[in-house]
């Protein structure tokens, strides 16, 4: 999956990829003070493509909010919402709007589910539908944080650690391996990283083609940008 931290005030963005073997579960957001967890499990392609590239995506996402008593499971097939011992199962082919005391959920058929957890976080999960007969690829999910300002300063995780901003500087722009993607040096979190100008896609407005967002790409699974290494965010279960 590709991770993107867009910083409009700096008119810039940071991005990195994390590639681990399919099935790995990563912690994306963790706010222990309110008991919030967002975890994602990766899936791979159906088979290795002729170019030998192994791509992974998120195929299953789990969200738990202990204080609110909410548990949400989103796969490429269905959406399960548990709240106060009650379970609601929705299919992506449904169109639904649920309003509860702790959670609001708006499901747009075959496209997205927007979730608002009362007084904590708002996010949207996109469903990327791939042609069923595609020899290699399969459906996958995208996770977009819409509002995180109510989370505590202790929020962490692969995405969560950036919710309170990040300081970085970029300099020494120079030709890269590919002419259209220059390299530069980034100073971040006390590290000096070789980064490359590139772009990744934001699919919120255009689910099919996405919108290119220019960003500084941090190599090696975001090493140097993220706290610790990608392995540190691997967890054993979705909840």
């Amino acid at each position, binding site marked *: *999956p*590709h*991770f*993107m*931290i*867009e*910083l*409009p*005030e700096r*008119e*810039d963005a940071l991005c990195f990829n994390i590639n681990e073997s399919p099935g790995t579960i990563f912690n*994306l957001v963790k706010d222990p003070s309110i008991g919030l967890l967002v975890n*994602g499990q990766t899936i791979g392609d159906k088979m290795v493509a002729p170019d030998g590239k192994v*791509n992974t*995506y*998120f195929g299953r996402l789990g969200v738990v909010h202990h204080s609110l008593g909410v548990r949400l499971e989103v796969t490429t097939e269905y959406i399960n919402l548990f709240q106060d011992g009650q379970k609601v199962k929705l299919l992506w082919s449904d169109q639904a709007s649920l309003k509860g005391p702790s959670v609001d959920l708006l499901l747009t058929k075959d496209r997205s589910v927007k979730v608002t957890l009362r007084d904590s976080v708002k996010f949207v999960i*996109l469903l*990327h539908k791939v042609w069923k007969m595609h020899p290699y690829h399969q459906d*996958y999910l*995208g*996770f*977009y*944080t*819409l509002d*995180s300002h109510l989370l505590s300063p202790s929020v962490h995780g*692969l*995405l969560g650690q*950036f*919710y309170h*901003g990040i300081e970085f500087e970029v300099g020494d*722009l120079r*030709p890269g391996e590919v*002419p*259209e993607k*220059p390299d530069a040096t980034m100073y971040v979190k006390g590290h000096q990283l070789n980064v490359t*100008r590139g*772009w*990744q*896609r*934001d*699919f919120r407005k255009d689910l099919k083609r996405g*919108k*290119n*967002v*220019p960003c500084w790409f941090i190599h090696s699974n975001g090493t140097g940008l993220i706290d610790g290494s990608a392995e540190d965010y691997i967890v054993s279960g979705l909840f």
Partner: protein
Amino acid sequence: IRSIQKRSVDDAKMVEVLSVKLHCTVASRFAHTVMTSTALNKANSSQEIFFEVDLPKTAFITNFSMEIEGQIYVGVVNEKEQAKKQYEKAVSSGRTAGLVKASGRKMEKFSVSVNIAAKSNVTFILTYEELLQRKFGKYEILTRINPKQLVQNFQIVADIYEPQGIAFVDAHATFLTNELLPLVEKTVTDNKAHISFSPTLDQQRKCPECDGSLINGDFIIKYDVKRASSLGDIQIVNGYFVHFFAPPDLPRIRKNVVFVIDRSGSMAGPKMIQTRVAMESILSDVHPDDYFGIILFDRSIEPWKQSLTKATEENVDEAIKFVRQIYPRGTTNINDSVMKAIHMLQDDRRNKKLPERSVDMIILLTDGMPNEGESNLQRIQQNVCEAIGGNMTLFCLGFGDDVDYSFLDVMAKQNNGVARRIYEASDATLQLQGFYDEVASPLLSAVDLRYPDNAVDSLTPHHFSQLFNGSEIVVAGRLSENDMDNFLVEVFANGFEQDFQVQGEASVTDWDVIYPEKDYIFGDFTERLWAYLTIQQLLETSKSGPAEEKSNATAKALEMSLKYSFVTPLTSMVVTKPETEEGPSGPLIADKLTEEQRQQADKQGGIGATYLHSAPQSGYMTTAAAPHPTYFVDGD
């Protein structure tokens, strides 16, 4: 010609296309094309038969008719609002109507359908006219053909009459195989050419046993005329005159060009890569005598150098290295970037850094709406126009669908330039280079064509900021007196090293003498050519002219469109369809899309049908949403 087709495959076999004929007559660059198609409904029940034609965007439909069982249904050109009412009435009563749809870069689609009784014939006849534009030293007649099935009588014929004499004629098609190639017949004499292409049923077949047709693609005729006189060619026919001005063998004049390149975040990805590649190529092509500057902009403005630089090999190499390093970021500040370019040219002129005899131009490339600095579009246009003050030319390239094309179009026209859409596609690099090539070699600047005040009226524009190599200036007018003995024509312009000044007397062109065997070309084509040019000029004034002239120009353009039966953006052609067994049918409407409507249609999925109901755009979004960070994870 996409010609006649049927909804389902089985039913389609019950429709036989008897003939498809395209006859194009060109008289002094004015092309009059008649497309005729006849089909037979072989079924035992009535069927809906479709007629679809791609015609050039620069053409105006002048007539459309259908002949069904001996009855002819003729189109009438109406004011658009009036036609719209008819259309909406038909739609509200549940009846269908035909439409012109947006289609492609050069062509637009005309599409109608009609219900035909069992064992009956239908003949569709569509006529359109256009003034062929000279680009890169050639005129081009483009016909798109896709008859969907084999046609018993298939024919493309073009007759070109050019009293100046024909320099060359090329005819080719994208679908021509070695077998089909000899079927393109071309006869060229001094001042006329005849081209025909008429494959038999068997020659149309993809293979001996199959029904698929090879005939699918573009049929293109290119030609140019001979040019001997520096004054150009003036033709006076039936009380109207037309002056074609493109003198031969002129040396190019030096130019000073500032490229203003958008590098805002929305340019990320292929657009930025294609821009870099195109700029590398364009910079390599800048003539060593020219001066150039580069300004990159997003929210900030970054000039390559603070003044223009001579295009020496070393400077070009350095500039190429600079453009290779453009990367996208930030928002879009069009106002300040264009103003910077204007000031750069003005400062260099003032400090005598630029050759005295040279032309100044700015080429703006952007893909988005201004959302930084001045974002009110009208104020940007006003600022730019006031700063330029008619002393330089502004060309605007709108990359993709997110930019408001009409904003760029008006701004370019207010400053003697043109705007061009660059389509997001794999060939965007070539589109950018192609545009630069068109304007790369100015031959004359401040071109002023003068005619006797007392002898002519209703002149089309006759002052041009530049004449580019391979192009042509066309001026037409109406004669106010019959005495043509002293019809003095003068042209003043700035040339390479000296002023260009020619004068001469025009004489009446007697077509009967030049073409004695052809007593009738297609009516009063010189008058229609004048009307076509005048309407185009009025339509431009109605968009980009001073406020007080806009409504007058619109009213005049509408009046002339109705008088000469041109389907322009102000008019529609309405054809009343015959009644069917189910009851009366709604009218068919043929419309002309503006580039903005085409862009809107492209955004909505390529069909222009919805524009008929869309509200007019009266204002612009001038504020951007407050920025807030976004964090996400997704897959490519």
